[in-house]
């Protein structure tokens, strides 16, 4: 049977996806760390603005370029924190015809909004960074922690959506020399722009038009790049790993995510369920003291110390059973992808040592 460790070993790119608060960032770091412990050269891209990964790695501030994490392992580990704006600036510089064009775009107010505030830009730049590291650098494994997007479409479609946005028909119309039939369209479009300007102010619209003028000629480069990114995301060596918690709402979101990936012909290659309630003793099947029995004793013995002990066990049992039930549909849905359940640890993950402990739980021991 394929294990999660097999999946990671065979991959060049791992995309960790799932909703917020399920330990996605930590999981991504763990996967990169474990790859380094297995002798590979790995880099992890994190997107989390809270700098949690940086904390766990003991780094003060990660930047947009990979920094090496020192540790006692045969491979190499690097980490970086995605800086949406500077990644976008890099793309503009790369595809502009000359420094003068790049300069005009970078200085434009509308561009600055696109590169920092437009929804989807972060997803776009995450996949752009992923592409850059995977195709243009010399890493064995690139792990990317995705933005906490609810919908896989947002991540997968971002490059195309942005490329489309930058190549919009309407702007072309606005900028085409006014002749014949084009002129009629242009007049109508100009009317729309005129009424919009009244509402939102002429300066902002002027800025937008100046941006599209400056951008002229670069659309093709952007579109081509988006197609390359697409190809990388659906490549055999790229594994999408779902990260979830056993809570009903995050399980539902993970299932939705898996479904959307499937619509893009991408299979989930692995599922990691973090923060599972530990099952004490032999588990729910044939256990000496199931949730109901424990609860009953807790009631009978209420108000005593041993009653508290039974309450504690009953709570744990009840939770474990509920979690197992929540997960049934999801694990079936991603089959035959391996599923790893990680129990809540009695420590907070704030250093490399803790990451290594999690690494063994998720990917198993490192074989000598």
């Amino acid at each position, binding site marked *: 049977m394929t294990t999660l460790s097999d999946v990671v070993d065979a991959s060049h790119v791992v995309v960790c996806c799932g909703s*917020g608060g399920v330990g996605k960032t930590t999981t991504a770091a763990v996967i990169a760390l474990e790859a380094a412990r297995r002798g590979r050269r790995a880099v992890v891209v994190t997107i989390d603005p*809270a700098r949690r990964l940086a904390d766990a790695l003991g780094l003060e501030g990660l930047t947009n370029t990979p920094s090496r994490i020192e540790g006692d392992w045969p491979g190499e580990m690097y980490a970086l924190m995605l800086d949406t704006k500077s990644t976008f600036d890099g793309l503009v510089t790369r595809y502009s015809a000359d420094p003068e064009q790049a300069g005009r775009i970078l200085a434009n107010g509308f561009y600055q909004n696109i590169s920092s505030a437009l929804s989807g830009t972060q997803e776009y730049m995450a996949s752009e960074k992923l592409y850059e590291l995977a195709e243009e650098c010399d890493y064995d494994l690139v792990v990317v922690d995705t933005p*906490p997007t609810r919908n896989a479409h947002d991540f997968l479609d971002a490059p195309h959506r942005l490329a489309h946005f930058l190549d919009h028909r309407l*702007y072309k119309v606005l900028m085409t020399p006014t002749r014949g039939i084009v002129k009629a369209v242009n007049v109508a479009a100009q009317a729309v722009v005129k009424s919009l300007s009244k*509402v*939102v102010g002429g300066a902002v619209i002027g800025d937008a038009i100046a941006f599209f003028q400056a951008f002229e000629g670069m659309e093709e480069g952007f579109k081509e790049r988006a197609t390359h990114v697409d190809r990388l995301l659906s490549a055999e060596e790229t594994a999408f790993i779902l990260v979830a918690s056993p809570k009903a709402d995050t399980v539902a979101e993970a299932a939705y995510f898996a479904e959307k990936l499937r619509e893009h012909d991408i299979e989930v290659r692995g599922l990691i369920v973090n923060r599972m309630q530990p099952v004490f003793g032999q588990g729910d099947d044939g256990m000496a003291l199931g949730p109901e029995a424990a609860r009953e004793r807790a009631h009978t013995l209420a108000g005593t110390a*041993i009653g508290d*002990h039974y*309450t504690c066990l009953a709570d744990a049992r009840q939770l474990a059973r509920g979690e197992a039930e*929540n997960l049934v549909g999801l694990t079936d849905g991603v089959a035959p992808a391996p599923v790893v359940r990680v129990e809540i640890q009695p420590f907070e993950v704030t250093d490399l040592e803790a990451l290594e402990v999690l690494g063994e739980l998720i990917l198993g021991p490192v074989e000598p």
Partner: protein
Amino acid sequence: MNPEQFFRASGLIIVAGKGGVGKTTVTAALAVAASSVGLRTLIVEVEGKDGMTSMFETGGLNYDELILVHAAEEHAGVRARTLTPDDALLDYLSGRGLHRISNRLVKSGVLDMVATAIPGIRDILVLGKVKQLERTDEQDLIILDAPAAGHAISFLRSARGLADAVKVGPISTQAEEVLELLNDRRRCRVVLVTLPEETPVNELIETAFSLEEEVGVALGPVVVNGVLPPLPGLEVDPHAAADETGITLLDEEPELLAEAGAFRRSREAIQRTQLERMADVLPLPQLRLPYLFSSELGREELDRLAEELLTGIHALPEGGGA
């Protein structure tokens, strides 16, 4: 503090917190609590999410208002609606003579362009619409389920940003009015939600300071979700505890109880540390909600959480809500 007084202290409560802390649950529980002490409450959801309705065991949420709790003897009623940025932008444009072409604006992507040209405009329009609702007499309290933490700050900061960037015209007026709402503690408060764990607490502290400094909005009590109820009996070893009560533990029971007890105590210790740290750093009262061991969250659980909130509010000092 009297709960009715607490909820009447401002007409708008904005609930914010990082993903996964139970922000939507807390929004719902606050609404049920407010309704139970006599306030007609409206929940506004801004991300187009639908999680709320399963808790109330009702149908889906959308732009039109939905009744979640009917007004009855013990309840003034809870209604809910979504208000996504796109809804708000269309609403705004159609209110300004662009109604006829609004569909075309969406289809042709002009709306995207406008929203990109003026970052924060979507947020300001949502808040502008909330302000408009707040001015009506249709409800006593609006509870806004804000976007997840990182975004909550930019969401609330949008007003100041726009007020600074755009000096004239309708957008500027809108931004100024929203800013007025946010900076008036008698009209608006932010309730931050967290879990008693290190990372969520760190983010909460950061968010609290940026909201106060950069937005100038008043902060209500912090809601700490998922606090393990104390089990003092766990201090006693299972064997000794059984002896005290005169019962005998069978086979693997002592081991099982000890294992479960040790785990729970280690989690409790983490929680205690975080709760104390938060109390030290943030001069805000805490309302604590118990960890629910049931995996499903329905009306019964919601009523229980609302009850816990009311108990917590009762225990707040006078004036502790604002």
